[in-house]
């Protein structure tokens, strides 16, 4: 294994658009930067395996479309930037602010190691919003994002009777990708509410600056609606089956329906993946409109911890284009902080027009595709909320009504959020359900306390971790001596 710099100037967590852009910009400015990423290749989820697909699977590349292909340019720039890059590496801890030194716990190829960067940039991206509904734990019910990941990583296309349910740009993008590849889902069960005045009001400003993107989106919607039956204002969604999903029932326009389905793909937008930021003690707040927790951010990406910045969809859902622009700007902000001892801190870099335009587009998309009420507060008490421990919405409502004061106490009472996913799939729902029962804001109700390790690590791996003195490499190592982004990363 190549020696890893134990004390890089900057460690970036995540090699998606935001992480790559920040790392490129910092490396190009001569900063020793090390990017840690769980995947085998750079790209994040949005550009996942774009190099491999480009080289080996031209048909899949055509189906995935131009926005996916555009990621190749950034990945190539990253490979040549001189930034250090550790693929297949998970991060399970960032030391608390009360600890004497900023450190980041990594796990690569079964070996745990602590790194001591001066500054950390979190670019942990997004995850799909939890979509609890009766039957969502049945095999054969997956997220739209999961199915798209299977297409990117292994060229898997859904086969047989496929139904898509929920809403959001990704659902329509994926439906369009399927049609391009010659696969036609049986139906789209759209849970989107009626278009609001706010959505209409934000359409014109977006159309004025981003006509191309909006027309492209309209093109997808039209292509999809022309080929796949779309039910609107769907509610009462249920997946049915004994051992795996066999059918899906729902209501639309006051009528009940049932469809055979062997694969039900669900989606209701994405939310920031805040687990590492929360475990690091960074302050968050609840964004009412987006119905999700977001970190408190000042400037481009400064958080409540001076040496930890956050950027991309992990900071706020704005999409890949904004993530790239913000990654570049964050690099300047971090550079200012790092070089602060030698001169005045650089002012927050000005917003380029492209960023403002993208924000207007994103604002419209968020208002056009608000979170579906049906998934936010599951009306059916039998709905499993915590998939790991199989705790239902009814049980959460019950303990809240009994006087349970918040999600952490509900956890102690019911075991919700105590399974292997650490609450990733239920935290949002539990906070929202309890807030509803107590008739307070979700912000006031709070979130599970997230503690490290946030990624699986064995006691043996922790015990085998080298002590500080034994570690390879040193602060004196010049960049380039360790695994750089353009070296071959495939070991298996």
């Amino acid at each position: 294994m190549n020696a890893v710099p134990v004390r890089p100037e900057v460690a970036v967590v995540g090699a998606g658009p935001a992480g790559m852009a920040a790392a490129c910009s910092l490396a190009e400015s001569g900063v020793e930067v090390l990017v840690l990423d769980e995947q085998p290749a750079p790209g994040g989820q949005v550009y996942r395996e774009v190099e491999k697909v480009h080289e080996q699977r031209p048909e899949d590349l055509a189906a995935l479309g131009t926005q996916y292909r555009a990621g190749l340019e950034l990945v190539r720039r990253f490979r040549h930037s001189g930034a250090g890059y550790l693929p297949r590496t998970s991060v399970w801890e960032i030391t608390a602010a009360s600890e004497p030194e900023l450190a980041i716990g990594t796990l690569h190829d079964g070996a745990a190691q602590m790194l001591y960067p001066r500054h950390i940039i979190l670019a942990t991206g997004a995850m799909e919003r939890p979509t609890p509904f009766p039957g969502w734990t049945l095999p054969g019910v997956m997220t739209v994002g999961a199915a798209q990941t299977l297409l990117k990583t292994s060229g898997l296309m859904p086969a047989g009777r496929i139904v898509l349910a929920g809403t959001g740009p990704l659902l329509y993008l994926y439906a369009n990708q399927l049609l391009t590849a010659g696969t036609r889902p049986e139906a789209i069960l759209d849970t989107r509410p009626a278009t609001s005045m706010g959505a209409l009001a934000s359409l014109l400003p977006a159309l004025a600056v981003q006509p191309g993107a909006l027309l492209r989106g309209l093109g997808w919607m039209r292509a999809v609606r022309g080929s796949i039956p779309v039910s609107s204002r769907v509610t009462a969604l249920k997946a049915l089956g004994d051992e795996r999903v066999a059918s899906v029932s729902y209501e639309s326009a006051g009528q009940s329906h049932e469809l055979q389905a062997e694969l039900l793909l669900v989606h209701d937008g994405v939310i920031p993946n805040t687990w590492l930021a929360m475990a690091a003690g960074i302050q968050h707040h609840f964004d009412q409109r987006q119905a999700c927790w977001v970190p408190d951010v000042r400037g481009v990406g400064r958080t409540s911890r001076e040496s930890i910045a956050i950027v991309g969809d992990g900071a706020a859902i704005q999409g890949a284009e904004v993530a790239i622009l913000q990654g570049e700007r964050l690099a300047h902000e971090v550079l200012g902080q790092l070089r602060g001892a030698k001169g005045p801190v650089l002012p927050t870099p000005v917003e380029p027009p492209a960023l403002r335009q993208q924000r207007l587009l994103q604002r419209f998309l968020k208002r056009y595709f608000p979170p579906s009420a049906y998934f936010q507060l599951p009306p059916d008490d039998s709905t499993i909320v915590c998939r790991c421990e199989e705790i239902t919405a009814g049980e959460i409502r019950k303990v809240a009504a009994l006087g349970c004061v918040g999600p952490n106490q509900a956890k102690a009472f019911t075991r919700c959020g105590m399974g292997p996913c650490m609450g990733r799939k239920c935290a949002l729902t539990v906070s929202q359900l309890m807030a509803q029962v107590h008739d307070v804001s979700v912000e006031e109700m709070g979130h599970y306390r997230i503690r490290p390790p946030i990624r699986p690590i064995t006691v043996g791996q922790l015990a085998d971790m080298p002590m500080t003195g034994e570690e390879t490499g040193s602060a004196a190592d010049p960049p380039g001596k360790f695994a750089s982004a353009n070296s071959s990363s495939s070991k298996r």
Partner: protein
Amino acid sequence: MYRRSAAIAEPVILWFEDRKIMAAPGDSLAAALLAAGVSVFRRAPVSGAKRGPFCMIGNCFECLVEIDGQGVVQACSTEVRQGMRVYMPRGQSPGEGD
């Protein structure tokens, strides 16, 4: 549930329970099993209900399987290896009709 857009040129052969699985190099274990028609990876520890992959990006922990010599891992975040022996997590019986 899923089909491959391209045939496998040089298969990686592994076993899930007693079943021989042909995977493509670079596949995640979860993708390889799904492509081979396996939809049930484990049973929920509380009710025993059957479960399979859900999110495919390492967040939901629904795709936990046991690998000989490696213990319980997330199949979506584990790359296939030649000769790998994979089971439903220990103490859990294979599902009927898989």
